[in-house]
């Protein structure tokens, strides 16, 4: 089982990668860690924060375990743009002209209340930073 740590400010949460459902994309994410990138609130996809990492861009990569809707605690990855989505509530992968598919690559362990608050805060306070690293011992 592969686990990652997601940190925003002083808040750290653990998430388990869905390696069976999305083997290639979870491997790609794992190989890119650690990363530290700006985190902003979604402007079309609802209750989630987003981060983009150049190392994760792969326009030719198939979207494994594809989802459109987000639920609390989901970590999603869109390989075409290298975008990671962190959902603290209901959301949907949306663009200017409709919806699209992303890969459901991870799920926050436990209740996630503190990290959800941190993700949601990007809406009122603006850009933050998210650091993602491999969990030690995982």
């Amino acid at each position, binding site marked *: 089982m592969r686990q990652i740590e997601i940190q925003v400010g002083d808040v750290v949460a653990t998430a388990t990668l869905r390696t069976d459902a999305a083997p290639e994309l979870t491997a790609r994410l794992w190989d890119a860690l650690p990363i530290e990138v700006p985190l*902003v609130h979604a*402007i*079309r996809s609802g209750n989630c924060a987003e981060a983009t990492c150049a190392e994760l861009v792969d326009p030719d990569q198939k979207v494994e375990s594809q989802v459109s809707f987000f639920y609390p605690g989901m970590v999603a990855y869109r390989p075409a743009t290298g975008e990671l989505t962190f959902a603290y509530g209901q959301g949907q992968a949306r663009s200017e002209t409709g919806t699209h598919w992303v890969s459901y690559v991870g799920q926050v362990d436990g209740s996630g209340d503190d990290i959800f608050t941190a993700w949601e805060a990007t*809406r009122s*306070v603006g850009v933050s930073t998210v650091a993602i690293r491999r969990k030690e011992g995982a």
Partner: protein
Amino acid sequence: MAATRSMRVTVGTATAEYTMLDDFAPKTAEALWESLPITGRVTHARWAGSAVFTKTPNQPVAAVSDVELPVTSIYPGTLVVRPGRGVAELFFSYGVAESRGATGRSYATPVAEAVGATEEFFTALAGTWSGGSTDVTIERVDG
């Protein structure tokens, strides 16, 4: 032809003038006009795209329940009113934006459009995405 009414909208330190679209939606435009001045905070949209919004309990606009001229697209520079629960939701678009919610598109009424120099103002609106919520004031021009 009736004289055109205008509002002054200040977001942070940036200001723009908005002309009322009385021909589009006279009842809703009048309700907003009668509710001025409005002060509060604008936050970047999370569903609508390139837009910011504020909610106001001011009357009579907060009591508006109809969508007088239903639109989903919020043209750049347009202010739309969307009925809420005891509040009116005002969206200011600076780019590609739609009235949307968790379950998809929704409808709002366009009541005003920005006129004149807007580049600095739109930059201020867009800036709420990375900079966070900021103050907004909406008032009548010339009282």
